């Protein structure tokens, strides 16, 4: 009980945030397994990294389903990692100042990467360079 007073007392419910975070970790972990293995197979087994250039990406992303695939992989990986770090901060950083600093940078960076990643996936124009 974070809210457990020295004398004891009723804990405050968290409105399910931790519950949803827990479910998300399990569901995203499972999805990531398949998405990441698929990614690995496409980029390293079927093709090789030498083949991956602008033309390759442009051709692949002409199909919105592949954009969705890559976007989902990126979002899930980012949020999965974000939640893992959030939990570690919660567990191990006890000083208030360090807590605030780490959480602010964590939330900030995650948001930034989410925006940048989404922008790239959304506004990439296959024809412009092709």
């Amino acid at each position, binding site marked *: *009980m*974070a*809210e*457990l007073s020295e004398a*004891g007392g*009723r*804990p*405050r*419910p*968290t409105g*399910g945030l*931790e*519950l949803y*975070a*827990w*479910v998300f970790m399990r569901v995203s972990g499972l999805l990531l397994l398949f998405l990441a293995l698929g990614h690995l197979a496409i980029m390293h087994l079927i093709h090789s990294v030498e083949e991956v250039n602008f033309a390759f990406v442009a051709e692949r992303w002409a199909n919105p389903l592949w954009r969705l695939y890559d976007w989902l992989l990126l979002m899930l990986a980012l949020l999965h990692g974000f939640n893992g770090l959030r*939990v570690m901060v*919660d*567990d*191990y950083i*006890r000083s208030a100042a360090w807590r605030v600093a780490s959480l602010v940078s964590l939330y900030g960076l995650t948001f930034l990467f989410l925006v940048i990643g989404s922008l790239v996936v959304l506004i990439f124009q296959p024809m412009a360079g092709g």
Partner: protein
Amino acid sequence: MKVKLRIKRFERGKDREPYWAEYEVEAEPTDRLLDALHAVKWYQDGTLAFRRSCAHGVCGSDAMLINGVNRLACKVLLKDLGQRITVEPMRGFAVIKDLVVEFDRFMEKYRLVEPYLKAGSEPPAKERLQTPEERERFDDTTKCILCGACTTSCPSFWSNPDYLGPAAIVQAHRFLFDSRDEATAERLVVLGARDGVWRCRTIYNCTDACPRGIEVTRAIGEVKKALLLGKR
């Protein structure tokens, strides 16, 4: 056989830092660690402090860190520990003296989960009946003796002393899954709070530490599932 005991000693109000004391005792391989501790206390150094009551693995008084893992001193045999044995107080609890630690906060959390049957409905003429299957549902968690071995083996508890801890969750599980109990909603509020079951990172130290063989991590997992899907 001769065994060398390295015991971490500390006395509140007297010592500034804990220190290691070494004792050598003559014992049988089939003696328990508790017998060796008695040999020290009774014949070598009467100032050594530790708790024990029944000395047969039932009262839960002598849980301590033995060769780095939480065990009951009355349940481990010397032949399984080697010639050099380190004994320390359980981690995460304040030390009062030597192997005696403070249980106040532990018991506070135990009270918080209201470890008793809460049935508001009108009692039947005789008793509240339960099928053998319904009894089986929470059988594992009835075995807890509140020794503290699970909670003090938990890294989440070490880093966050506010975490409810495995022992209190096991006790809550015992009533949560009791078909006669009617306080499910209240219990789930306590267990689903910020420092309730979500602090568990499924490390399994608690299951390993439990001297009664309770599958503690599984019990915690069942509570998590109950919070997600409702009680089954």
